[in-house]
Structures are given as C-alpha cells and as structure tokens.
C-alpha cells in the first residue's frame, strides 16, 4: 500500500490548535508542518499533501483563521526532508497557468524529484472576490478549465528536452535551441506561448493529483496520476470508473494510483489497521491519512500504525528512497517533443 499524510493547519480537527501540546505560533512559522513531514518521512510514509484554498479560512471565533500558502510551505519543507513526496494544493481557477507550472517544476528541482500538486478548483464567491479577475463559475466549468491547465503544464514541463542544456564551449552555445519548444497552447479561457522558463523537472512530470469531492472532479481525475477518494459508499463505483477509463499521462501507467482518504484519531490504531487491510483487499492502491491533530496523531501513525502495516506486509521498508513517481510505481514520462524539431 502507498501511504500518504495530510497536513492541514494543526490537523483536520478544527480544535486541534487548542491542545496543550501545540504551540499556535508554529502554525505560522511552518514548524508544525516541518515536524509532521519529518516524522512521516522517518516512518516511511510516501507523501504528504498540504491543504490550501485561495481565500482565507473561515473567520470563526474558535478556529484557525490563517493559512500559509501551500506551495511556499512545501518548499520550506523540501530541504529538511530527503525521501517523502510533497504535494501542495494549488487552486488553478484564478491563477496563471504559466506561474503554476513553473512553481511546481521548481519544487521538483529543489526536492530532487519529490514534487507533485493537488489540482483544485474554486467555485466560491470569496475566492473570486479576492482576485477580482472573473465571476465565480460552476464546478463543470472550472474543472473543464483545470484539465486544460494540467495539459498545458505537462506540455510546458516537456518544452525543455532533458538534454537541452549543452554548455558547448566550442560554439559558445549554452543551450541547444532545437531542444526547446514553443507550446503554442490555446484553450477557451487562456493561451500560453512557451517554452517554460524552468528546465524540465527531474521527474519529467511532477505528479498530478486530484482530490475527488464532486462528480466533475471524478471526471477530471481520469487525467491524474494520483487520485484521492473520500471514504464513502461510492468508492467502489468511483474505483470502477477510474479503472476502466483512466488515461493517466503517457509513459506512466494506464490507470491512476488510487488512494482512499481516511480520518485518523490516535486511539483507533487497531481499527485503522484493519480498515487499511480491507481497502487493500478491495484493490485500492493506498490510503491518505488525515490526522485529527498533527502533534498527537502523527507520532501514533509513525510509531504504531506504520510498523503494524509493515508487519503485515502491507507497505515497504521505511528507509526506501527514490523519486515520488518511483514510490508510486509511475514511470518517467517520455517527452512529447523529444526529437520533434530535429
């Protein structure tokens, strides 16, 4: 089984920040996230996701009403971890696709091939109002656009061939311009000329993940390489839909990696292990654990849940390394432009 962990504020429980074990200031410095990621990595967990939304969290009295940008937080975590995959949530509805792909490619460079992104859309009036570029749009419309953003991102990651930097002192050329490509991408809502400003990332394509919260997201998840399904009665049907029509990026595998997202509270170790075993038997590739409290539950996941899963042969050794794609069993994608201009 592939094991992921969610980092969301002080934990998925809105009251987690109030625990005596939590220093609330550590939410803002990123220390809470760093500690959780390091504990998860030491336990052999494959990846962490970083929750985010464009707009600020709800302004409710007993809740954490602040949030760091997930991409910045993932980048802060990258140099102090070595093996764990890092997937910030990025809302693509209001952002510039060119910046998004450059940032995710950069996260892959600085982490040595451990980057991915959880593609998210926004249909909320709040997010539209803080940006002011357009009116809120429906789930169908925003996910349709998100699929174009994923598509252009992959093309921009390919816009530099792997060997584009030649440093040929004899001709004075730093790059071979024949190995750089304009993408000339056009969609109903945006266009991008290319090439990217960032050379092709170490993984070729950082891992594209979709968290399925709506039927429209399930449709878009067919383009993803990693799909997070909420724990619900619909998982079997969703799994079936993804298994039969998955079209994950060329050169990786024919169907996306599918994991189920599970809430975790420390006192339920036995039940959790049993449940993960059941999902494994049902043909799910892994689980995405959403700890109620990072400070309380991550140590229990690390010290009790992972060793038990390992003892049952459900997950690999803790110290294995490699790229995020490697950990997920995804191949390195072929460059669609490779050799095209030569």
């Amino acid at each position, binding site marked *: 089984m592939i094991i992921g962990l969610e980092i969301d504020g002080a934990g998925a429980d809105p009251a987690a920040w109030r625990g005596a074990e939590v220093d609330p200031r550590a939410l803002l410095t990123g220390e809470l996230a760093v500690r959780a990621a390091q504990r998860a990595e030491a336990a052999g967990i494959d990846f962490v996701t970083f929750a985010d939304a464009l707009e600020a969290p709800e302004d409710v009295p007993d809740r954490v009403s602040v949030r*760091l940008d997930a991409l910045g937080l993932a980048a802060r975590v990258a140099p102090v971890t070595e093996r764990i995959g890092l997937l910030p949530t990025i809302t693509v509805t209001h952002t510039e696709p060119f910046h998004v792909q450059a940032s995710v490619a950069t996260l892959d*460079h600085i982490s*040595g091939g451990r980057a991915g992104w959880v593609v998210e859309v926004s249909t909320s009036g709040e997010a539209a109002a803080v940006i002011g570029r357009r009116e809120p749009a429906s789930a169908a419309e925003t996910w349709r656009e998100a699929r174009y953003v994923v598509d252009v991102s992959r093309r921009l990651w390919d816009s530099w061939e792997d060997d584009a930097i030649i440093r040929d002192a004899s001709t004075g050329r730093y790059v071979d311009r024949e190995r750089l490509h304009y993408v000339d991408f056009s969609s109903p809502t945006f266009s991008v000329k290319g090439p990217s400003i960032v050379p092709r990332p170490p993984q070729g394509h950082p891992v594209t993940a979709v968290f399925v919260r709506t039927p429209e997201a399930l449709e878009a998840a067919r383009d993803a390489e990693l799909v997070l399904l909420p724990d619900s009665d619909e998982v079997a049907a969703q799994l079936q839909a993804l298994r039969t029509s998955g079209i994950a990026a060329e050169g990786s595998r024919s169907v996306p990696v599918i994991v189920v997202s599970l809430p975790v509270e420390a006192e339920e170790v036995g039940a959790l292990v049993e449940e993960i075993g059941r999902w494994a038997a049902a043909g799910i590739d892994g689980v995405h654990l959403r700890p109620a409290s990072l400070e309380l539950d991550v140590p229990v996941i690390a010290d009790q849940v992972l060793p038990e899963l390992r003892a049952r042969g459900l997950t690999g050794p803790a110290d294995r390394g490699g790229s995020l794609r490697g950990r997920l069993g995804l191949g390195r994608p072929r460059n669609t432009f490779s050799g095209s201009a030569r």
Partner: protein
Amino acid sequence: MTKQLHLAAHFPGVNNTTVWSDPASGSQIEFSSFRKLAETAERGTFDFFFLAEGLRLREVKGKIHDLDVVGRPESLTVLSALAAVTTHLGLAATVNSTFNEPYELAKRLATLDHVSGGRAAWNVVTSWDAFTGENFRRGGYLDKADRYTRAQESLRIVRKLWDSWTGDELVLDQAAGTFAREGAGAFADDGPHFSIHGRFGLPPSPQGRPVIIQAGDSDEGREFAAASADVIFSRHGTFAAGQTFYKDVKSRLAKYGRSEDSLKIMPAVTVVVADTDAEAIEKAAYIREQQVSGPTALVLAELLWGRDLSAYDPDGPLPAEDPVVGSSVTQGRVGYNDPFPIVAEWRAQAEANGWSLRQTVINQQNRQTFVGSPTTVAEAVNRHVQENAADGFVLVPHLTPGGLDDFVDRVVPLLREYGVFRTEYSGTTLRDHLGLSR
C-alpha cells in the same frame, strides 16, 4: 559618524555576466548552487540574497537566444526553500506586478516572510512587454502607461493587504479558543485596475511586512521609489554617477515625509579580487574576454545597432551602417532609445585604440566596478558609501556558485576592521539588517 554599509548577493544568470564555460561554473538550476551562494552570503553577514526574474526566454532575430545562461527556477519557491537552510539572510524575489494578481502575490510573499521569520523582500518590476504577455492570461494587452499605473496600484493593494491586520488581532488564546479577533484582515479596494474585497489570511510577520525593493532609473521610477520603496537597486556603480543619483533620489524623500535613512541605495556591481592590483587587472581582462565571445559580441552590437550583423566578423571593424531605432531584432530585453551617440562614441574609441568590434564591445560595455587587491577593493567600496555614492552594493558574481568566495573571505574582513560592516548579525529580520523601522 562612520556610515555602516549594506551588502547583497545576486544569483547570476541569463546574461553574459556568467562565465558558464569556466570549469568552476556549477549548475544554474540545482538547489545546491542556490544554497551554496546563500551560505557564502550569510557567512559574510550580507543583508540579503537577490533573485532576478524572467518570464519568457529571450529571442534574437526570432530564435531563442542560446549563448547565455537560459532557464532558472521560480524565485519565491527557491527562496522559501532557502529559508529552511539559512537563519539571518534576507531573501529577495523579483516578481512582476503586471502578470500577477495582488492578492496572490501578497499571500505568497507573506508566506515567505513568515516561514523565514521576517526576511522576505519583493523587488517590484513595474512593466514588461507584450512579448512576455503571450505566456499569461492577462497583462500583455496593456499599453506601457497602463502597465505602470497597474504596477503602482498593485503595490498599493499588496501593502494594504499586508496592513489589513493592524497589529493586535492575533490572540492565540488556546483556553478561550480565540485564535484571532473576528474581522482581522478584512479589506476592500476599488481602483481602475482591481476591484477586490475579502479577508487576508496572514497576520504581519516579525518584520511587519516584507521589504520593498525597486529598480528603476527614469524620473517616474525614482519618484515611485521615493514614495514607496525601502531599497532602490540602481545601475549607477561609478562614483560620480552614483553621487548624482544618490543626491537626486534622497532629495525626493522629504516630500513623502520620509527620512534619508528610510531608503537604501544599492547599485548592482561586479568585483574582481586578486593578490595584487596588477593581478586583479589581468584577471578582470580575462573575465571580460570570457564574457564576450565573438558571437556574443555580435549579439550585443545588434542590440545597439538594431540590425542583423551576422555577416560581420567580430574580430574585424565596426559596422559601417547607421543604427535603426525601435527595431525588434532582439526580444525580451531593454534596447536603446537613442543609439546614435553611443555608436559614435564606439567608433571614436575603436578608431583611437585600433579595436575590433569584439574589443570595442568588451571595452565599452563590460566594465567591472571594483577591481584590485582586497585592500583596494575594500577602500573603494567604503569610499563610495562614506561619500554618498551609495549606501551599499548588490554584488553580481561572474561565477555560480563560488563567485563571491574571494570577496567574502578577503574583502569583508577588511570592511569589518574598518568598522563599517557588521561582524555578526545584530537582529534577525531583514528590516533589522537594513536599519529600517518595522
């Protein structure tokens, strides 16, 4: 009183300063290069580490320019990672205000400021061209004047968002369950370019808000900096031009109710250090020659002439034709508004010295600012600061990532001996290092 000077390190790339063909030249992309140069700057107790930005690959005659360093990672992501491996060094990102939304920029920069403990800076780039705009949803369609007003409005709104928390709203009372006072961060703005409202989800960092850096030399740019910037990043590295610029910009501060200390003037400069002055001069000449190969000399001359000069021999005489104004021979970099006097000067110098085209480009365009023994360089740097040609410098090395080792190991100790540069950081935020109020 002796003025204390300020120093910053620029990570070089995408122009012919970087001698990528040198065996000591490392990766321009790998994080280890950024980390190494940042660690050198922090060992030298520099104020900050500076990253430039490019949003489209430059072209020469319709093709991607292939002679200089091409490609770099995205700045804010790299700097957030550097926050993890440095403790005091300021982290400055150049981010274009034309191709970004103020809310998103404010959030990303505030995140960098928080995860670094108050060390972030934003170098506001005020305008760029439609060529670059072809990579973006919006921005490229604006004409030049609109891009400038959009930049001003963008900066004003970003500051408004950072200031939307006025100070004491972050409560962090776990027992009472009050994280922050309700309503903290509320904002609304309705300007010609942006009409936005909502709540900003990050309180002020330990330095209050990120430092604002402004590069710009036009009258508009100087005024913009005098009104809004904390640091101005100028091109006037020579002593006389530096003094003139310094006097002009500082004199503009009073009308905005600002003291002369509140805006630091830091030109970008290059430095060549060797054991003796003679050796340094020789080394500097060698570096200039590496920076300007024959093909690079032709491209730089094309930028001035506005013409295709590929038929010329770089080791032969200067082109006989007149320059063309407003040509699009090169894309993605600044051209010359009035090339005629510069061409006349180049011709006069080439004639007088018997220089080839390449030698003329080397001698006319690629001057190093400080060349000499450690003592010569330290004295010159200090004189510029004490005599108000600058408040400090942004050093642009010709090698990545080891190009500042000589300066940090040999010149910084002398500046410390003179009592004009810190021996250790006295504060933890970038505002502390720059002597700016919170």
